[in-house]
């Protein structure tokens, strides 16, 4: 075959194929609201809960029951399946799970500061488990604000009662510069 033709075909193939290949690598920058399926609005539940509770005292058992219902709904918030296996970039606050004091190898990413002490805690589709694999991330302070880039997955828990949750296998974690 004509070597010039071969070269031309190769160049054309690369030129056409490269953007596709690169697009695969480029992470999609997402926001916390993308993790919530369309039509599911947690603030609906909160509004309902607040209406019920505003007429009751704090330690009224009915208030507790209402809080219980809200809690159950938030513990099992649905996930967005279409995001599964996408490479994404998400920013949030880091909550250490496993580390050696200097660097963390496994952490939770949450949308706001102090998610552990806040009542109620964020719904389960607003908490992402991040594994840093072979490159632990050096933390500078507790509850660091970071940007995580990696492959997003939805993982089923070992209990059938609970809904799936998000996991990111991070390729890149950096301190977030607002």
């Amino acid at each position, binding site marked *: 075959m004509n070597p010039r033709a071969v070269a031309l075909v190769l160049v054309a193939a690369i030129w056409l194929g490269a953007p596709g290949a690169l697009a695969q690598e480029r992470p999609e920058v997402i926001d916390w609201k993308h993790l919530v399926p369309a039509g599911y609005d947690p603030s609906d539940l909160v509004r309902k809960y607040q209406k019920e509770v505003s007429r009751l005292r704090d330690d009224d058992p009915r208030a507790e029951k209402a809080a219980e219902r809200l809690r159950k709904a938030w513990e099992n918030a649905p996930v967005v399946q279409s995001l599964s296996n996408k490479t994404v970039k998400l920013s949030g606050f880091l909550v250490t799970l496993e580390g*050696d004091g200097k660097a963390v190898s496994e952490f*939770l990413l949450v949308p706001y500061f102090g998610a552990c002490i806040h009542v109620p805690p964020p719904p389960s589709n607003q*908490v992402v488990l991040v594994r840093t694999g072979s490159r632990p991330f050096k933390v500078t302070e*507790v509850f660091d604000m970071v940007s995580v880039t990696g492959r997003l997955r939805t993982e089923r828990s*070992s209990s059938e009662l*609970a809904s799936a949750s998000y996991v990111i296998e991070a390729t890149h974690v950096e301190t977030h510069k607002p």
Partner: protein
Amino acid sequence: MAILALAGKSLLNRRVTAVLLILSIALSVVLLLGVERLRTQARAGFANTISGTDLIVGARTGATALLLHSVFRIGYATNNVSWTSYQELARHPRVRWTIPLSLGDSHRGFAVLGTTADYFRHYRYARVRGLELEAGAIFDDVYDAVVGADVARELGYRVGQPIVVAHGAVDAGVSRHDDKPFRVVGILGKTGTPVDRTVHVSLAGLEAIHLDWQSGMRAPGAAVSAEEARRRDLTPSSITAFLVGLDSRTAVFHVQRFVNDYRKEPLLAILPGVVLQELWEAIGVAEQALLGVSALVALVGLFGMVTALLTGLNERRREMAVLRSVGARPRHVLALVVGEAAALAAAGIAVGVGLLYLALFVARGLIQTRLGLWIEIGFPSAHEWLLLAAVLLASIVAGLWPALRAYRYSLTDGMTVHV
């Protein structure tokens, strides 16, 4: 090169000073690297003590206090967790496993921990390592005990050995449960965590020895024999704390909230990773201070070298003149002095590293016993190499001062010296 040979001979002539200089640099290197080693080992050992645990639950106290006494056996619990509350929380739908912990007694300076077989199944440290038995088996009978590696080593225990547990944190021979001795049935492998310094017994065993004890002492006239105790109901009424593993790590905030809001008893649930991080940050200041101190010591060592070189220069002016006559230019003299400083520092570093390894081999056991810290002896880390390089560089820079002096002397003196 002839000049190098001459320089070597010159150094040999001043060998007493040279040896002292090398020693002083060596000692500062030992301190610098030694502190660095201790620091990194302490941090790693500390943070690696517990892994794979989603929550630690205890009576309501401070987060750090709960972590310290449940995992590190430092400090005391202010209150207990009732058995009923523990059972109810363990039945929470998101909880996959729990490990109950009961602390308070001791044995010859080592903490006694009452727990269940699940401890050996689920406890993890250093990310993925589980507890392994070096000898024997885990407890089966009420009076069985499994001891940590250090307990066995320091007290010379073997499988089958009977041991007596003392009431309270100090084993002074006064409040011993000597009517109900335990028997060592297993010895754990080394972990480098507080597990090594713990005697593990079953919850039933701990309950049995306290059956006839009231308010911290043996109730008179109501003695229960060891055999009689076996036949009683040995379900504990309370425990000190428990470790929790969930079905999904993202559920941790919900379960934590559930425990913290639990109305029937004031309890506290903590995320060990977060509290360890906070604790280490608080201690981190001391870490930095230690590093600062050892850097200062290295600086003092270098000052000593510069002083020695400077004061020796006057005597060496004739030597410089001789060198000039042989054909050395003033810049060669400068290079020689700097080279000497570098050579002394390099020798000091080599001797220092050697001394450090020697000291570590010798003192490792003692450090382990006194500080509970196990120092791994391996090649210097990248960070340590960097520190050594910094010392070498600093010595070269420091050597420039006497070198420049020597340069000026050799310029003004030429080949004849007028002292």
